[in-house]
């Protein structure tokens, strides 16, 4: 058991990286606390698997260090780091029984057979594989095989961290939910550090205590699911997390007041915007925090209403900019002209993609 520190970490696959684009993983300093549940979330090709492989030791970073507690493990192979990993596609040893699969990592480490037996049975009970323990592993379904992969990590007492590389990719939808809750439950039971890589926000937000959001090789925000939802640190986080994602609208800021299409908008941080700084200014507000207002507000046109089942998604236009909002079922949506109100404490100004720091809430 150990905390994992990434110290000035960067990685480039090609030799002699010069520009930031040459790096598959941009500079990163972060500490995974011992026993935490973390998710690395981002679209395909964002560098999350690269980061995962660096932590597990399958890849040596081109710059920086990986520390397990205070020990520098940057140059160590996976088996010397005491980690476990569950891969995207189930990896089981086909010719062995489920029992032998679970016993394999222990036997390779020369653990006495009596101890192996006790441990294997304990873990099999934990991951609901007791009934199929003596079956051949190749005969199990995909979710059973993923459980075996996980079990091979759980049987070892020396494991510092268990890594998951999109483990639910090949699992049937109705089993995904089950396996996800199982995973969460297991984490609470064994208190091992777990790092879960995924491009699925639901998986990340339900599993993790802390989510690391990545985009094109860069960590854009690290936070709890609530923080990511309520205070996106970057436009990317805003529209990647949430369904539909955050509204991002070009805006102007004059004297600490934001204007959208010439109309003033109350925000939480416009007062912190400094004049003359580089980069375009944009306003971010989630559809959950936009509402229809009968009296005053920002003039808008209703374009389309679609029903998601739990609520109605209303698409409107403020000038040329599309603004989405969520309205509860059963409420009549006026056609044509209407007015919108944005919740001030959830409406923020972003400069060049990043949240402008300061303002009322800071």
């Amino acid at each position, binding site marked *: 058991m150990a905390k994992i520190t990434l110290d000035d970490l960067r990685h480039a696959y090609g030799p002699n990286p010069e520009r930031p684009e040459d790096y598959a993983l941009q500079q990163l300093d972060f500490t995974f606390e011992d026993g935490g549940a973390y998710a690395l979330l981002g679209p395909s090709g964002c560098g999350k698997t690269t980061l995962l492989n660096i932590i597990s030791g399958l890849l040596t970073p081109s710059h920086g260090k990986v520390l397990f507690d205070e020990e520098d493990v940057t140059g160590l192979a996976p*088996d010397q780091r005491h980690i*476990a990993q569950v*891969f995207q*596609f189930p990896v089981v040893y086909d010719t062995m029984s489920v029992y032998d699969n679970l016993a394999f990592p222990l036997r390779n480490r020369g653990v006495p057979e009596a101890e192996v037996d006790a441990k294997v049975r304990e873990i099999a009970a934990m991951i609901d594989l007791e009934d199929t323990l003596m079956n051949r592993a*190749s005969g199990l379904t995909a979710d059973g095989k993923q459980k075996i992969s996980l079990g*091979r990590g759980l049987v070892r007492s020396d494991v510092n961290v268990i890594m998951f590389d999109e483990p639910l990719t090949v699992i049937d939808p109705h089993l995904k939910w089950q396996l996800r809750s199982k995973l969460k439950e297991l984490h609470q039971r064994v208190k091992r550090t777990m790092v879960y890589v995924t491009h699925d926000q639901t998986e990340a937000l339900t599993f993790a205590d802390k989510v690391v959001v990545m985009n094109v090789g860069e960590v854009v925000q690290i936070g709890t699911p609530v923080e990511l939802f309520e205070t996106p640190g970057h436009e990317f986080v805003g529209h990647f997390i949430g369904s539909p994602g955050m509204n991002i609208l070009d805006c102007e800021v004059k004297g600490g007041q934001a204007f959208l299409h010439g109309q003033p908008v109350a925000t939480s941080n416009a007062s912190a915007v400094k004049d003359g700084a580089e980069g375009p200014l944009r306003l971010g507000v989630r559809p959950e925090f936009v509402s229809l207002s009968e009296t005053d507000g920002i003039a808008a046109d209703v374009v389309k209403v679609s029903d998601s089942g739990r609520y109605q998604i209303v698409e409107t236009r403020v000038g040329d900019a599309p603004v989405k909002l969520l309205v509860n079922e059963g409420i009549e949506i006026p056609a044509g002209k209407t007015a919108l109100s944005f919740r001030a404490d959830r409406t923020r100004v972003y400069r060049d993609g990043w949240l402008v720091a300061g303002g009322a809430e800071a």
Partner: protein
Amino acid sequence: MNKLQNNKAWLFVLPVFALVAFNAIIPLMTVVNYSMQETFGNNEFFWAGVIWFQDILQSERFHASLGRQAIFTASILAIEMPLGIAIALCMPRKGPWVSVCLVLMALPLLIPWNVVGAMWNIFALPDIGFLGHMLNAIGFDFNFTRQPGDAWFTLILMDVWHWTSLVVLLAYAGLSSIPDAYYQAAKIDGAGGWAIFRFIQLPKLKRVLTIAFLLRFMDSFMIYTEPFVLTGGGPGNSTTLLSIDLVKIALGQFDLGPAAAMSLVYFLIILALSWVFYTVMMRNEEQ
């Protein structure tokens, strides 16, 4: 569910049936026909019943060639399978050397069989051949045209040289198709080289190795050209394998009936053994 009956579909398979009938069934039936008749030339045939089959099954000559054939096939399989796997394991997985290795491996397979026989015949000649000369030079009394042991040594060496590549290429293709995750998982689980081979590579190679084994079994059991050119079945009858013996009976002695009966027995042996091997090797796949 009601199955739609559409017998018109048979029309589409008809050309294939015709083709198969022409190139397989008709010649085979001719052989069946010969195997039950006696002929003295002039295209006159007399019914002989199963007499040729009785003769063949009791013939010491047939038993002897069958025994030699079994020893030959068993020997080359015992050498080529492990050797092929070992070479495939040693080959690089990526980089410029991959294509070099693949071309080198494929070369023996591209040489016509009678050329292989002729090459090895000259290569192993004790006076002028490189192999034969060197063996004698370092003190072995090597002469494959006179000594049965030396003939067998040359024959097996030639087959290993010619056909191990096939096992290598199949095994290499099988190895290349194993996803990296398996090796990574094995590394994480602390598995050593032997465990990786035993629990990952070998199980994943099982299907291609079954195919390699069957191909090598069938080909070597039917081998004719190379030993015919290399030793001609000699010295004496010491390297007379089944096919060489068959040709001697059919074309040397022109005993059509016995040769046809022998062909059928020969064919059934290969068919039966292939089926047995396949069933045994695939018995765990269904679970």
